Each structure stands twice: as structure tokens, then as C-alpha cells.
């Protein structure tokens, strides 16, 4: 098979994963101007919850196909519980403070959640490998790919399209965009900014957890996966422009394709690939691909 085709397929699959883990982070930053380091822990919580609940489901002898629904349910539960607890219990007291303070606060949450995960699930890895092979596989030339990779690709497209539609085509989405552009003016126009923040953070937390749940069948779910992931997610979000949804999508595609090309043609450059993209983009556009000029308030 043409190696170029393999590069593109592998790149797009990796891009899908990158977009899924980064989209919640960029959404929260876009609306709330919070660099949510705890996003890594929400991803890990999603992965652990999915592995534990879907693993239990399968071990109890239920239909393995049902494990996909259980995984999704686990991620939604994590988002619905952790999101409001963090936002209502902590972050709302910090609004208006410097961005760096909020970074430190979310870092503290990250550390607490990492220990919570260890206390809850221990340090032994969890496996949920069944859903990865359950849907069978398909061949492209002489390469075999699990159909699950298509699920990942489909999930990334669905999440991206849904968010774009909500933000641009619905009344509530337009209210949210108004808050993004000018919080004070939006509040003056009668938008409940507190509610917008609450909903945004909860949805962002849910997206982080969905990323973890969708990844769980492909990896060994173990302590530390959140830290590894948040670094990649940050890189994607920074390349795309903080808070930009299309930016995150384009950055994920760029990074995925460059990394895939590096692995296929020059494996020794794999380690450097994502940071190479980051360096080139930031040299040309210091605020990322889709950054918008900011008006300075006098």
C-alpha cells in the first residue's frame, strides 16, 4: 500500500484523538478564560470510570455491545458530578482574579483529583480491551485497522460539528458567544453569566471525561495518564489559538499528520514532531492559528 495513504489514515486517527482530548479545554478557555489543568484529571476520571463500569458490565455477562453505552454513561456521570462540584465549589469564588491564579487553582484541583484516583482505584492498571476489537476490523491495502478507530473519528467529527452548530445556530450558543466577547456587556444585556459559566464548565468537564472513556479501550488505564494527556492537549490548544474551536481542529490535524509522517519516514523525529509544529506556528502567529486581534480597553 502507498505509504502516503497510511500516513494520512494514521494521522487522521491520531488527530481525532487529539481533538477529542483538547476540545473541552479550548471551550472552557474560550468562554471562561481559565486554563484548566484539571482537564487532565477529568480525562483520567473518565477513563477510570469507563474501565471500571464497562469492565463490570462485561464481567457480569451482559451483552458486550452494551459496554459502549456504559462507557458513555460513565463519562457523562463524571462530567455531571465533577464539573458542578469544581465550578460551584471552587472556581466561582475565583472569577475576576488574575488568569495565573486560576491556573494555580486548577493545578491544585488536578493534584487533588490525581490522589483521589489513586485512593479510589489504586495503582494497578485497569484494562477494558474488549470494546476495541468488538466491532471487527477493516483493511486498507495491506494494513488492518480496528473499526473502533472509525468510531473515534466519527466521535471527533460529531463533537466538533455539534459544538459549532450550537455556538453559531442556536440562541443559547449566541448568548455564549456574547459572553466570550464581552462578559460585562453580556451581563448588562441580561444574560446570566454565572449560569453560562456553570454550563460551559460542566460541558467541558464532560468532554474531557468522554475523551478518557473513548481512550480507555486502547490503553492501560493507570495513574499518570492525565498528566501525559494535558501536555498534549495544551500543545494542540496553543497551536490552534487559545479558545478557538476551529483552531483546535486544525491544530489536531496538523499535529496528527506531522507526527504520523515522522513515524513513517523519520522515526527518530517522532519525539520532536508536535513541538516542531508548535514552534513553527508560534513563530509565524504568536497567538496561534485562529487567534483574533484583541481590542485594548482604555
Amino acid at each position, binding site marked *: 500500500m502507498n505509504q502516503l495513504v497510511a500516513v494520512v489514515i494514521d494521522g487522521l486517527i491520531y488527530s481525532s484523538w487529539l481533538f477529542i482530548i483538547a476540545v473541552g479545554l479550548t471551550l472552557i478557555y474560550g468562554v471562561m478564560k481559565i486554563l484548566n489543568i484539571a482537564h487532565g484529571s477529568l480525562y483520567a476520571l473518565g477513563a477510570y470510570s469507563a474501565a471500571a463500569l464497562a469492565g463490570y458490565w462485561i464481567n457480569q455477562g451482559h451483552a458486550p455491545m452494551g459496554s459502549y453505552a456504559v462507557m458513555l454513561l460513565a463519562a457523562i456521570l463524571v462530567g455531571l458530578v465533577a464539573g458542578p462540584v469544581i465550578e460551584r465549589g471552587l472556581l466561582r469564588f475565583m472569577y475576576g482574579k488574575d488568569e495565573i491564579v486560576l491556573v494555580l487553582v486548577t493545578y491544585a484541583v488536578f493534584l487533588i483529583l490525581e490522589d483521589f484516583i489513586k485512593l479510589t482505584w489504586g495503582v494497578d492498571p485497569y484494562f477494558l480491551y474488549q470494546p476495541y476489537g468488538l466491532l471487527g476490523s477493516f483493511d486498507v491495502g495491506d494494513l488492518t485497522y480496528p473499526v473502533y478507530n472509525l468510531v473515534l473519528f466519527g466521535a471527533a467529527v460529531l463533537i466538533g460539528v455539534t459544538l459549532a452548530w450550537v455556538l453559531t445556530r442556536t440562541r443559547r450558543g449566541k448568548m455564549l458567544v456574547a459572553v466570550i466577547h464581552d462578559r460585562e456587556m453580556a451581563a448588562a444585556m441580561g444574560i446570566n453569566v454565572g449560569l453560562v459559566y456553570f454550563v460551559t464548565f460542566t460541558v467541558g468537564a464532560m468532554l474531557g471525561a468522554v475523551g478518557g472513556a473513548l481512550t480507555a479501550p486502547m490503553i492501560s488505564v493507570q495513574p499518570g495518564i492525565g498528566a501525559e*494527556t494535558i501536555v498534549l492537549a495544551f500543545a494542540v490548544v496553543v497551536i490552534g489559538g487559545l479558545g478557538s474551536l476551529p483552531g483546535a481542529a486544525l491544530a489536531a490535524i496538523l499535529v496528527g499528520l506531522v507526527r504520523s509522517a515522522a513515524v513513517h519516514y523519520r522515526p527518530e523525529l517522532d519525539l520532536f514532531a508536535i513541538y516542531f509544529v508548535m514552534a513553527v506556528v508560534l513563530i509565524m502567529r504568536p497567538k496561534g492559528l485562529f487567534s483574533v486581534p484583541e481590542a485594548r480597553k482604555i
Partner: protein
Amino acid sequence: MDGNLFRPLKTVAAVLAGVALTMVCASGHAQDKPIRIGLVTFLSGPAAGPFGVPAKIAAEAIVESLNAGRAPAPYNKKGFGGTPLELTIVDEAGGATKQVTELRNLVERQNVDFVIGYISSGDCLAVAPVAEELKTLTILFDCGTPRVFEEAGYKYVFRTRSHATMDAVAGALYLLENRPAVKSFAGINQNYAWGQDSWADFTAVMETLKPESEITSSQMPKFGAGQYGPEISALLQTNSDVIHSSLWGGDLEAFMLQATPRGLFNRSQLVLVAGEPYLHRLAGNMPDGTIVGARGPNGVYAQKSALNDWLRQIYKERAEIYPNYPAYSVAMAFLGLKAAYEKARGAGGAPATDEVIKAFEFLNFDSPAGKVMMKLGKGHQAVTGTAYGTTRTVNGQVTVGNIKYYPLERVQPPEGVKSLDWIKAGMKPGKW
């Protein structure tokens, strides 16, 4: 007035009496004072599950059994020479800089007598000079880099397991004995010291013993990468006869989960030089016929003996599974130190650190994995033979068959010869 004059004298006398009493009490306690051992192992992070926690469980079980005098001969004296042991456990996570600080804390604030620890090669290289500076007998129990004693000499540092060269050498020997027609091979290894060294050793052995074989690809994902889609595609496209891998922990498990459904191991023979701890965990995702090493004759490769039965029993009582190679590594460290301590103690009292060091150098001692000889690094680096086998699934459990044992002279360079130089010179058996 007189009372006021003598009050300071009374106070001084009371303080002196108190100090004297404390000293008497302290000397009384000194006779029962346990030997304090600092254990450094991963309790968090990716290495905790497969290595760190099994090592901790083994250490606790061994200390409890030694203190009760329940270990088989020649280790059946309670504690070390009758003195009980006390463990202080420290998490190895956090990187080399943190471990240097932790070692200073263990020695200077927690006053441990000996340190047993370190799974990461990077941590071993960082703490060895510091242990030397602190003059504290430190045993490296699991890290594999040969550089510790090939590039430096230490008085206070020992390593009671063989270095990693034999993992790659024996893996290649086993492969060529069982598949002599190998024409091409590829590798997937983590991009840091362990992965790079293992790949360098393996390719050097193949170039020496099978010079016509072709290297088709060397994949070096970063540690903790997690996603291996492009790497698996690249390996599939090489159609290599063999894939060598020193991946471990979550990286190995993720690679196996992703590569098995894609049929990579239907095309290529897999050689896992550090795969033994995952046999029971990867049931269903470890293809039959995988060549697996245990970094010595450990775990499933340990031969029957009273010491092996003892370790298996005390470990299973705590962990409900049989021990894997990190548990054997930790057992070697404790039993080596006990043998040296008791040899130094003889019929006398507690030996000084220098006496224990003298007794430890060039010591031969028995372990659950067989005989251990402190032959390299001027008597500070252990040598053992090793073993390899091939996986097969029986009743849903992954086990190994076709086991082959390699004596140490076939898989280890002799004293004073660097590993790669020895391999490139044809791996002539040294004199031991």
C-alpha cells in the same frame, strides 16, 4: 535570698540528671534498636503497578518473615544477625532530582542504616554519587543500566541484580536458536536510556551473530506515548521476521492492546525482553509464541528451591498472585545484605558499615532465583545467568514453555570490558 541563690544550681542539677537518665535509657534501648532500612520504590506513576508495588509488597513480606525467623537456611536467623528490621518506604516517583533529596532525607533526617531501592536507571545514576558522599550503604535493586559500574567505581553502592546487557544478549541468542532463518528485524523501544541501550545491544548481537539480517525499522516513541497507531502501521509495512521490544508498564500494555487486533504478531515474531510481569495481565492479548524474558531466572523462570518456595508463599499470602521479577530483585537485595551483614558480624556485635561493605564485596549468596555472585564492579555488581521462554495459553492463562537457561559467561561481559565492546568482539565467554 539563699533559696534564690541556689535555684540556678538546682535547675542545672535537674537538667544534668535528666540528661543522664535519658542517656541511660537510650543505651538501654540501643540493644534492641532495629536496623532501619530505607526502601525506595515507585508507589505512584506508570511504574507503580507492574514494578513498584510488587517490590513494596515483597519487601514488606520479606521483612516480616525475616524478623520472625521464618526464612529457610541460611537466612533463618531473625532479622539481620538477631536484630529486627524496620522499613521506611519512600515513593520513587518525581524524577532524579527529587530522589537525590529523598535520599538525603532518608539518611540525614530519618537516620536509616541502609538504603535498598531504585527501579529507574536515571535514578540509579543520580543517587549513586550521593550515596557515596553520604557514606551510606545503598543497594540498587532493580535498575538495569550497565553504566553505573562501567563508567564509575563506588565504595558504598552495590547492585544485587545483573545489569541489562544480558536481557538483549540472551533474547537474541534464544531467537536465533529457535528461528535461525531470521532475515529481518525491527524494534519498538521507549526513547530514553533503557530503550535505546536495549535496542543498541540487540542490534549489536544480531549484527555479530547474524550479519546478513537486515534492520528494517527502529521505532522510538516517547515514554508514556499511549497511542501507537502510526508505529504499528510502520511496523506492519516492514513485514519483518522479528520485532524486538523493551517496552514496559502501561506502554507495553497499550502497545499489545492496539497491535494484537491489527494482526502485527501474525506477521512478525515478537521478542519482549522485559515481558514477564505482564503474562497474567495480558491474557487474551499476549499471542502464543511470544519470546519473553524476565531479566534473570526470575518469576516463572525461577527454579524450584526452598528459597523460591518461601518467596512464592509469603508473596502470595499478601498479593494473592505469585511474585514477578521485581519481587525477586528486591529479595536478592535483602538476602544479599543479610548475608553480608551476618558475615561481617560473625560472633561479635553490630558491625560497622565498612565491615559490612568488606563482607559484601565479591560475596556469593543464594537467592530465590539461584546463585548470585558479586563479581563485577570490583565486587559491587552482581552477575547471574538468565532464562528465556515462549508463551503459550493454557486454560485462558498465559504461561511459558520451551524454557532455556543461559549461564552468566554466555550473556555477560567480564570485568573491565564494556558491554557493547564485548558484543562486537564476538561475546567470548569470560573467566569467572
